[in-house]
């Protein structure tokens, strides 16, 4: 491949990648859940959860900043049958974003094996 072609390809790739990130970011801004509209300033303050500028899945600490300790979260759902925040399999260590999705559809990983239903 000639040199110009490589640069042209790289440029196209870079633009396309940049575009897709930007596009994803804007789509995600539009999709913040209702109860988070306030904290995220209507979905414009990505940094409040993501810290980084690249669209990364936030660590549990980001959720717990507002929601308190994991144990507190578990207490709050203690009355739920099969408390998902204190299960036999993960105790109080199940990663928040394993089930909760801010910009997509949430779904309990429990459902891979169990017929329990949760409101999320």
């Amino acid at each position, binding site marked *: *491949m000639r040199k110009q072609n*490589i640069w042209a390809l790289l440029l196209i790739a870079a633009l396309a*990648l940049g575009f897709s990130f930007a596009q994803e970011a804007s789509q995600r801004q539009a999709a913040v859940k209702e109860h988070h509209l306030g904290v995220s300033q209507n979905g414009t303050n990505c940094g409040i959860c993501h810290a980084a500028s690249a669209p990364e899945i936030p660590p549990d600490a980001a959720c717990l900043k507002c929601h308190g300790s994991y144990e507190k979260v578990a207490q709050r759902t203690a009355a739920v049958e099969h408390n998902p925040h204190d299960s036999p399999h*993960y105790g109080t*260590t199940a990663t928040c*974003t394993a089930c909760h999705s801010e910009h997509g559809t949430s779904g309990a990983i429990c*459902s*891979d094996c*169990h017929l329990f239903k949760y409101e999320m």
Partner: protein
Amino acid sequence: MKKDRSRTNAPALSRRSLLIAAAGSAAASIGVLSGFAAGPGDRWDEEYDVVIVGSGFAGTSAAIEARKRGASVLVIEKMAVFGGNSAINGGAFAVAGSPLQARQGIKDSVEQMVEDMLKAGRGLNHVELLRVIAEGTRWAYEFTLEYGVQYKDVVLQFGGHSIPRTLQTTNNSGGGITVPLGKAARNMGVIFRNRTKLEQILQDSSGAVTGIVVREGHRFPDEDSGRLRRIRARSGLVMACGGFSSDVRFRTRQDPGMDNSLQSTNHAGATSEGLAALLRAGATPVQLDQIQLGPWASPDEKGFGMSPQFLQQAAFPYGIMVDIRTGKRFVNEMADRKTRSDAILKHKDEAGNPVYPVAFVAEEGTGESPSLGNALKYGVAHKFDTIEALAQFYGINREGLLAQVDRYNAFVKAGEDREFGKTFFKKITLEKGPFYAGRAWVKVHHCMGGVQINTKAQVIHMATGEPIPRLFASGEVTGGVHGASRLGSCAIADCLVMGRIAGENAAARKA
């Protein structure tokens, strides 16, 4: 349901893969991928004494042992949650010569456990590993107690074991082990990183392992997701990445019968790429087509669910399983898993559709089942006052069943199963209701095959027959221990014992 939990494992093309394909071909020529070669001058993003791939029993116990010896330790896990199959496991742990057995007057020995496992394994077992594992169970048990694991005060009789030797965590799950061990490891300073997938094992020109390439911020099952980073393992790399039962494509290549008409009990991340990385590094494959079907699964729920701890801990030991067309038993309900699964799998109609057998037990035999309540609640099991009602509900041949029940009751009373040779550990007949029943089918459960290791958990090179320097493996990714059929509750034994050995030896160069 989020897409990242699909059970099929076709190598998903990522949303951006088309764009990246364009960039990738150019990037390759400017050196992104050349970072995979491990010349001495190459830059590491991070360095640890010991790096461990996988956060189940094997990885977590390796981490603790390595850290105890002063090594800096990183555990990577590709999934969002830690614990793999270990966390969703049933918490049943075979220990040869446990204090609980002694208290109940059960005589057991390392030799007897080895003998039971060899019999089920049909002699394919690598005996030297088997010995180390059986011998290590007692110490692995003590090790778990040290970190706060709790067991019920009962010794269970599992299929294929000649005596009761199975302990069970109080919460009936492997999570009762992985969670406290994981907490202990973190407190000791082990670093755990989720959504970080092993991409490749790096070796120097002599073949010795130097580190790994990972994808950090990985979003399973999007194969290409995450940033590539290079992590050095100064003293040792432990591969504890588990089996591949959820990897339909790969398991079908090993055994065409394991296609997607069968469900799996495993977590979605039980796939083969870690094994592939090991083979690329020169490891010896052992018995990869020895894939176990669990004979106690239910077609009425997904995955492992509630059925196994009902059938395995109640209906099979203390009741019977019958073909609904005849009402007759067809196998020793307490035989090893291969014997039972092969027998169950034959129950198909002319069109090849399953004719699910039904297993049931009288109330008296349900005391050891922790899941019956939930099984009833979610329709996986049902309760009946009479055998007739049970037969009607499941469409079982009534006369055949009633005659079978009479025969079985007589065998129990005489203390000898003259049909299938089941050992009656308790005298429980099918005379007095209520009865509890569920449909049984097989699901892909365990990979007996994997890479060859020696008793120090060193991975053996296929061409030289020598250990690959600084490369260790333990748990379900290794092969040979269980041969043709793993006995229930022997995987925890295997993973904890060999995990500890792997961690200890991987840290050895550190000292």
